[in-house]
């Protein structure tokens, strides 16, 4: 039971971290509860579908279907996170000002929410499909299934609680700083996802350049330990990165910051509440 709990828990916390950060990043934006729920719900449904077709996906593209699928999911999430950060660079100040003044939210929240709902949905889909497959395996094997299943359900509950903790922890950040902190977190999240995506492309046989391993810090912190996994999701920690992974990681960070700088309104244009 404990084994099942741990396996499920560590998959759920990876998605949970992302949901927690997204919730903190959208504080004060109207309708976010609904959008995030749609994201989570869509992700759970998607996880079921992906798990059901795991064999088909795997065999597509000469056996590289799963790798290409994962790379695409991560790639889309990276683009959505960039879009969100660019939007926040433009409108974050207005939202923070508004929150301070009336304690309620601004009206123009719809845009980044669709992007972030997609990010949440994809995160839940990716980790969730592994949970579904694992739990399915338990149920299919029958013997001593119930104890394992309880472990799995407890793992999901634990992961959900962890999401709540992440969110509450980020809420402790004062309003003034919340958007710059979450923008940083999202930039690192995106860079880590991009580095993961490029490794899936490598496993698919598509991007094989610069595939030498740069260093090995697995003796210090294994990527597979719970803390290693948290850092893996949060900042893209990889204990044995390739040259290409490091390159993509840095390039994503630079692209993100350039985009945010370009999106930021000029100091003069900011005062008459530039809408779009």
């Amino acid at each position: 039971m404990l084994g099942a709990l741990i396996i499920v828990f560590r998959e759920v916390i990876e998605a949970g971290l992302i949901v927690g950060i997204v919730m903190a990043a959208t504080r004060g934006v109207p309708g976010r509860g609904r959008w995030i729920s749609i994201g989570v719900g869509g992700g759970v449904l998607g996880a079921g579908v992906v798990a059901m077709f795991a064999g088909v996906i795997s065999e597509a593209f000469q056996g590289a279907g799963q790798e290409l699928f994962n790379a695409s999911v991560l790639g889309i999430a990276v683009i959505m996170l960039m879009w969100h950060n660019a939007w926040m660079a433009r409108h974050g100040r207005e939202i923070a000002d508004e929150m301070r003044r009336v304690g309620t939210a601004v009206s123009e929240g719809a845009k980044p929410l669709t992007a972030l709902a997609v990010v949440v949905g994809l995160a839940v889909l990716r980790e969730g499909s592994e949970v579904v497959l694992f739990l399915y395996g338990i149920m299919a094997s029958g013997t001593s299934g119930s104890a394992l299943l309880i472990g799995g359900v407890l793992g999901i509950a634990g992961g959900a609680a962890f999401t709540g903790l992440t969110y509450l922890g980020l809420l402790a950040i004062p309003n003034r700083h919340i958007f710059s902190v979450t923008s940083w977190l999202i930039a690192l999240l995106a860079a880590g996802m991009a580095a993961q995506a490029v490794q899936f492309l490598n496993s698919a046989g598509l991007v094989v350049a610069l595939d030498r391993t740069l260093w090995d810090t697995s003796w210090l912190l294994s990527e597979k330990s719970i803390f290693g996994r948290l850092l893996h999701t949060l900042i893209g920690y990889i204990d044995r990165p390739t040259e290409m992974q490091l390159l993509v990681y840095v390039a994503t960070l630079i692209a993100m910051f350039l985009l945010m700088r370009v999106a930021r309104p000029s100091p003069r244009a900011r005062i008459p509440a530039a809408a779009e």
Partner: protein
Amino acid sequence: MRSIFVAVCLLVVVPAGARADDYVLTLKDHLFTPTEIKVPANQRVMITVVNDDATPEEFDSAALKVEKVIAGKSKGVVRIGPLQPGRYPFIGEYHEATAKGVVIAE
């Protein structure tokens, strides 16, 4: 649309190089056979993982940089390398206690 599909397929096939049939790992009753698999160092290698169990398994190795779900009663191709000479452990994540093995690059 179809031309894109074909182009992607070709891209996947062409650089892969190595023959998948050379290396086969079979999973049965949550145990890998063989438990040690020798591959040449410094080149890309394809290993076919055959899952003979009814339940899905995730072939997982941080050392080999692979995470791949293999559905029950099916098989999956894992592309690894180029590897420095050495030992690279892998596990079946869903049955970590029994499903484990090592790739030896030499």
